[in-house]
């Protein structure tokens, strides 16, 4: 509406549409993961707008990575809680950067 360029939301949409053939060839389970990755990207759309990258896919991939890392951090925290409740018998702990420790 009165804009010269596609908005960042439209750009994400375009990138997703561009990859629809790729998605189609993925196994069904992977398709759901593909959609989840784009959901990670959409949740960080304000950051993508600020980046103003001429190739938005770069920023989208970064957002997807952060989304994945976020999920990893949540799982790590949960694992810690579970381990505290029932400590494992001398199993090595997964090593994560200190920042991720809640």
């Amino acid at each position, binding site marked *: 509406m*009165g804009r010269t*360029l596609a908005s*960042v939301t439209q750009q994400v949409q375009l990138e997703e549409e561009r990859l629809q053939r790729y998605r189609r060839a993925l196994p069904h389970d992977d398709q759901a993961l593909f959609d989840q990755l784009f*959901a990670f990207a959409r*949740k960080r759309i*304000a950051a993508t*707008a*600020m980046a103003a990258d*001429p190739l938005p896919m770069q920023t989208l991939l970064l957002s997807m990575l952060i989304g994945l890392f976020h999920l990893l951090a949540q799982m790590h925290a949960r694992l810690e809680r579970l381990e505290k409740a029932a400590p494992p018998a001398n199993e090595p702990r997964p090593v994560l950067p200190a920042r991720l420790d809640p």
Partner: protein
Amino acid sequence: MNPDLSCLRGWILDLYPSPEGMVLWLIDETGQAHRMVEPFPMALYVGGASRALAALEHTLGARYPRLRLARARRYDLFLDREIEVLEATAPNPIAYRALFRELDQEHPHLAFYNVDLNPALVYGLERGVFPLAYCTAQAAEGRLRSLVAEDSPWSLDYALPPLRMLSLRLGGDLRDPGHGYRGVLEIGTPHTTYRCRWENPRVLLTTLRAAMYAIDPDILLTAWGDSFILPEIFRLSEREGIPLPWNRDPAIPPARKRGRSYFSYGQIVYRAPSISLFGRLHIDRQTAFLSDEYGLDGMYELARITGQPLQQVARTSTGTGISAMQVATAYREGWLIPYRKREPESFKTALELIRSDKGGLTFQPEPGLYEDVLELDFASLYPSLMVKFNLSPETVKKKCPRCRPQLVPEIGYPVCRCKTGLVPLTLEPVVARRLALKRLAKGLIEQASGGLIDQASGGISEARSREPDDEQEVAARPDERKRELYRRRQLALKWLLVTCFGYLGYKNARFGRIEAHEATTAYGREMLLRAKEIAEARGYTFLHGLTDSLWVHKRGATQAEHQALADAISQACGVLIGLEGVYRWVAFLPSRVRAELSVANRYFGLLESGEMKLRGIEVRRHDTILWVRQAQQAMLAILAEAHSAREYRLRLEDVFALARTLLARLRSGKVPAAQLLITNRLSRKPGDYRSRQAVALAARELEARGVALAPGESIEYILTAGGGARPFQAWSVEDRYDVARYEELFVRMLETLAVPAGLGRKEILERLTGIGQPELFGREAAKGPMVALVGAGRGVPLPSLPACDDPILDNPQLGPAPRLLRPEEPGSPRNPAGAGNDSCPCRGTRGVPLRDCSPRSNRILGLLSRLEPPFAQERE
């Protein structure tokens, strides 16, 4: 009218051009109207090559001996220097308009300045007066000799003339009478209301004539006056030979403008026809811009501030108002006012374009229900940024040899700082005034003592000097009526400021320039990010940000901490940010297409003050049917009793109980048709629709009944059983509405309230089909807290028409426009007993305290405790 008038004090009611000059109508303190005329020459300027100007001067001099012609040098804002122009002064405003029309046709290659100015505005600027200003006038035999304003448009408290009003409206439905059903004509005087039948035109005309002579109204307040009532009465008056005193000025007939459809921002818009009067004012509240938002009080404020006559304010958008103010600033400064926009977009690299072509920053909150959330809002963010950073079409991206320009963050445009730009010059007093009015409306400061703020700059310093130490100034709080007045005035200014930003980027705005627009949004993004960073540094969790507002959370934070955060942000940004409030709970809603994502501007929540804030949900949307809106309002009233996310879930069970009762009523076919109307705008002519969509079916039926419809016009229809649709005007008692389609609309509304608590569509449908004790809830729900939210404050879902302006048109119980019943419907004059309309719970019984309406069975409580919300985010 007094021909031997010598000295008079009063208010300017109307100002318009005539061949004699400007006609001014003054209302004195007794309410008497006086007409005065003053000769008023108006000048326009022509720019171009010196030889072309010389030739034009010669031609015009020979053709029009009364035209005053001279060469002059005037400042061109965009060239930033004086240029040589030909000044042509016409003897009166009518000749001024005619002269420009001729020049534009004969010399399209020349540059024109000051050619399409509003004579009333220019007259006001020349004489230092404005519409509704209190003045002292000296006149003899109707000729104005002197005019001195004893009033300032910037005065926070001002007296208004003792205006006499006459209202004209149609009885029955207040629906577009051009599309069919028309009730009796109700003529409302201050003492009584006369109801006249159209079938008896002589009685109607003589009654109206008598009322007009008896009251001699200053304002004729109508609903559908422009498009139906006045044209219809004109026709009857001519046919029956009974003239009516429409204008006080007998020399001129009322001015009529035809309706038209036009294309704007990807939409077809229909502008209704208009009828303006002379010497008295016709205001059609049906067509007036945002009249249900700020009412007549807001219109008076806009007329005074923008310098446009009241009848124009009532018929144009606030964008026209801000344009008029910019023209006034340029006129006052003696700058040339270009006829059309001449500043094309400057060249940019692709990368520059990608960086700069962005709007406000919009975050994506995690959908769900949150507790203890603080909302902070920047006060008039964009206008404040334009003022603070001197963002104006002529200052942004300008190579200024005199100063070291400041660079806009993110996009790097240079902004000249050595001269205040036209837009900041115009906006600064408005921003300060709105802030002062907002504080007055909240009772934070006492009324401006002495009242007058003489100069715009004085107004700012006064308003600013009052900002700190609010509490000390609370001593004399204005009463409720006064606060409401201030609230409406500040709302009107809010819309001026909102459109002002849009006009910076508008392709046809005289003083618009896309780079100034881009610079404003870039600063806006910067400020929101700064606010986020400051909040996070102070231990707050950032939940959501939307252009000029942010939502944050910090466990156990005190009010003092919140205030300290707001102060820190205000200081770092140089723009005031206010505490909107702390939410007991707030729901950020998921997208209907992708449930894991939210929609940034769809949320609702309960503030600690007890007010509800609702954005983007059904009750706030104009395209929601009245029945669904009322149902949601009743449900929100139930949820307003919940003080935590846990209580929200508990209360939701009462909501479902009410929903079951309402659905049962829908299925029984007893919901009045007037509550099921869908309003839709025609995107084309009825005959041009190819599909069988509902709006097309209804439009075709209306057309078949002889109603002329233009693209952009709105029509109202009901979805009928069997997949069809009928216009409301054609609806008959035998018709049946489509239960399934209305059920779907209802369930979608219910989803808005239930999904944040973790219920999916499946669970919602399960609850609707019978878990619980319907008869218990049915009885309780029938008490219906329909009116509970009305008056609850800013978050009130159904806006009502202003109560003080017009007792006849007001009906605070129903939506934005008073909606009355059709003749055959219960409660209407033909069916006064109200048969068939007695038990709708959402109509409500007044005065039932909400707390009493929700006893819950242990079984329901047990069910609730087992709820496992999939994405509830509230903090324990």
